[in-house]
């Protein structure tokens, strides 16, 4: 039988290796645990922050791209609106999501310049209700101040773990913005609130551009 020939032995050996590799890759993808996802994102962000050859603007853009992959802004926006969600038309919801994401980027984007060699350690994770996961991390600030505890809440969306909330020292971003929008939406329409975020973003961007003029 030709199956005993060296060529076919090699072929079946190669197939075995290939299959084994595929299987390994498959299990690796399936086992991409939430804490690995957070570790990976944190590492990517730290690489950008540490890169002295990048301008603040370039850093901000790269971190935004990382955030877009790691954070589920659609779910985050819906959680922020909670029971006010029913007041929004699909178009308004899309506009809200866009402006809210922009708001987070404008307000937290400045911090790329205040990076002082902080490091991130993952300290644990925890199962939450209905399949959610919390990954706990500590931001080590060295001599620059007390360490900061951050919990990342993740949810599996289409097979991928995405961040849906940041809990800094026990303060949830979703809860905090929910409470602000709750107040605003008790007296304003969704359209007015979207316009308000838009205006604030435009002012924030103007300030950012004044500090870091384009082309420098």
């Amino acid at each position, binding site marked *: 039988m030709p199956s005993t020939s060296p060529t076919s032995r090699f072929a079946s050996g190669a197939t075995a290796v290939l299959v084994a590799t595929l299987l390994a890759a498959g299990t690796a993808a399936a086992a991409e645990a939430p804490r690995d996802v957070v570790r990976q994102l944190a590492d990517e962000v730290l690489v950008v922050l540490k890169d002295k050859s990048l301008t603040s603007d370039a850093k901000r853009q790269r971190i935004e791209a990382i955030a877009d992959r790691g954070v589920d802004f659609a779910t985050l926006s819906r959680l922020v609106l909670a029971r006010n969600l029913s007041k929004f038309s699909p178009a308004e919801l899309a506009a809200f999501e866009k402006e809210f994401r922009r*708001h987070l980027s404008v307000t937290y984007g400045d*911090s790329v310049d205040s990076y002082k060699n902080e490091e991130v350690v993952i300290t644990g994770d925890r199962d939450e209700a209905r399949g*959610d996961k*919390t990954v706990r991390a500590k931001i080590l600030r060295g001599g620059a101040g007390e360490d900061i505890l951050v919990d990342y809440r993740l949810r599996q969306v289409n097979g991928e773990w995405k961040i849906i909330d940041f809990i800094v020292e*026990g303060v949830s971003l979703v809860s*905090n913005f929910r409470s*602000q929008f*709750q107040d605003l939406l008790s007296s304003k329409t969704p359209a007015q609130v979207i316009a308000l975020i838009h205006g*604030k973003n435009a002012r924030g961007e103007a300030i950012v551009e004044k500090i870091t003029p384009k082309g420098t």
Partner: protein
Amino acid sequence: MTMRTASLVIGLLATLCAGPAFAGEGEEDPWEGFNRAMFTFNDGVDRWVLEPVAKGYDVVVPDPLERCIANFFQNLRVPINSVNGFLQGKPLNGASDLGRFTVNTTLGLAGFLDPATYFGLERHDEDFGQTLGVWGVPHGPYLVIPLLGPSTVRDTGGIVVDSALTPTWYFLDTAVTIGSRVFDTINARSLVLEDVENARNAAFDFYTFVRNGYLQRRAALLRDEKDVTREVDDALYFPDEPVR
């Protein structure tokens, strides 16, 4: 047991089990009108007096020195952390804080340095407001105190007891104590110039931002483990989304 004592016991148990109400929807703020007025006052004092002074101070005093000064004032509060650790039935934390105080006051040169953290004696942020919480006292309505800032009825009681426990009041002149308190505040403010500015920029309603942040943070401190409880999760992460 009569009906009356039975209902009394049940009522007491209910208070004990109630625990910290979560800051989110239905944040307790029945005095919002008064609170907002006080908040505007405090915010004005900060913008027009404290922040400019802290900015000037920050220019003159280098950051490492600011942190040493912050360490010194924080060290003075460690005995209070310790007492409250014991009162909350956490003798190990209370003892560890006593050790921390001893190490930092001696090796840490009167508390300006913090070798205790290096030795693993981390600070336990306990105060009498939290002690009352552990004993089952509900936090009650949110309250903004002039010059002191956000609080609750329970935490206000806590502040009164903690300052009675502060030894400096008995040893030093009142003016000196107040003066050192003002200095502590300016120094602490100079360390968070950027953070406060970021927060002001991030907030759509700074009053609500601070109220929610304060209540969430206090609830987290009371839990010690910075965990969010299961009931909270459900309201926060699975709001009943109406079918459209």
